[in-house]
């Protein structure tokens, strides 16, 4: 599994000027400053939204804080993916099946963002600003970067599955996990026509911890503030 050709590698500390991402990451990692979680003490009616997540479940009584953190972690990744495809589509450098991939997948990631925002209600983290370092400007770097992001997304959801306490959240996360895996296999097949990289590189997919994911995202320098 090769890394994407990212021109610049910056750490999260270097780019996170106002500390917003750090703060969000710490919340996500379970630090003690859980003020934004306490804020949303309203008990909202838990109806199942179109997209699968129960609406405003993060604010429902009995939903553990750790589940809220996992949802915000997922939302941060989905913001990043959605913005990446939106920028690639806007630049218009993609053709054929690659363009189709970017359009379809971009639509899915935007739908994931919306579903997670609805589930989180006022507990949702805000969308960061991104700098994709020119990776959306050519087909080659776009594809490699998309592969890295999608593989990371699969590992990220997988790594949280056994930590999710609320069954309805687990179900919805599973529905997204499978789709991220489909995206990853699809872009891998576009790159290598089934040879290298393999769309399914091993019999058991590797889970990533939250720290591994946040470190990998931090290293890309994609999150500006």
């Amino acid at each position: 599994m090769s890394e994407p050709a990212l021109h610049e590698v910056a750490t999260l500390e270097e780019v996170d000027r106002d500390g917003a991402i750090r703060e969000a990451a710490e919340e996500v990692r379970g630090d003690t400053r859980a003020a934004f979680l306490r804020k949303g003490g309203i008990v909202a009616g838990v109806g199942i939204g179109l997209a699968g997540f129960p609406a405003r479940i993060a604010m429902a009584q009995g939903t553990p804080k750790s589940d809220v953190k996992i949802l915000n972690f997922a939302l941060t990744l989905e913001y990043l993916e959605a913005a990446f495809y939106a920028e690639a589509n806007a630049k218009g450098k993609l053709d054929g099946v690659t363009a189709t991939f970017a359009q379809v997948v971009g639509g899915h990631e935007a739908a994931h963002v919306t579903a997670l925002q609805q589930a989180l209600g006022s507990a949702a983290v805000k969308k960061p600003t991104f700098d994709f370092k020119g990776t959306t400007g050519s087909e080659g770097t776009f594809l490699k970067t998309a592969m890295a992001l999608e593989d990371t997304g699969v590992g990220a959801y997988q790594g949280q599955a056994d930590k999710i306490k609320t069954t309805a959240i687990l179900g919805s996360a599973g529905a997204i996990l499978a789709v991220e895996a489909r995206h990853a296999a699809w872009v891998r097949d576009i790159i290598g026509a089934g040879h290298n990289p393999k769309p399914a590189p091993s019999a058991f997919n590797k889970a990533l911890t939250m720290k591994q994911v946040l470190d990998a995202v931090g290293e890309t320098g994609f999150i500006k503030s």
Partner: protein
Amino acid sequence: MTPDITPLAGFDKDGALQEASDHLERTLSRASLFRRGGLLVAGGLLAGSLPVALAGAQGVPKGDVAILNYALTLEYLEAAFYKKALADGALKGEYRRFAQVAGEHEQAHVGALKKALGSKAVKRPNFDFQGTTADQATFAKTAQTVEDLGVEAYQGQAGNIKTPAILRAAISIHPVEARHAAWIRSIQGRGSGQPSPAPAAFNPAKDMNAVLAAVQGTGFIAMAESGSGSAVDGAPSMAG
């Protein structure tokens, strides 16, 4: 999104799977299956797979054992399907490569599930793939159906699994099935873009009854091997 699978429709003439499901339900209600294996085995993790003989360990709920055997039945089917397709020799190029790689994965899933279940593992059924492995186009459509179903099946059980180690293992297989499904869809879609490798933003899930009905509809499970504890006894009909 279950694709239209004309070649698979209307085969299950003998109702063998349903019969086996009913039998399993009776067996489960007696719980004899589970009292048998009282051995407490250390649940050491294999590389990337399931804890060895976990199902024989004390404290593993019956429901988890049933889910593992359900998964094993589906993996037996997938592994046998690819093996037969490769043996039939009709696949070329990337279709053949897909069958080899996916076949190896399914076989690894079978091995991991059997080890986890130990003596509680259901036996492998006999299969009859109804000629679907004999030509490339039918193979591809069938592989797509089987893989999509596998994704939906694992997804439908995640919320029902009680043992964290089993959930972790199942959730490491689930995305691999999704990768297979996207891969065979991508191969078929060369040029046309259809079927889409990722047809929806949220993958649908299926409960056990829906999956077993779909499997039964294929007629792929031919008959149980002779003797007690036969293969399709393990295809549970418990409500998902």
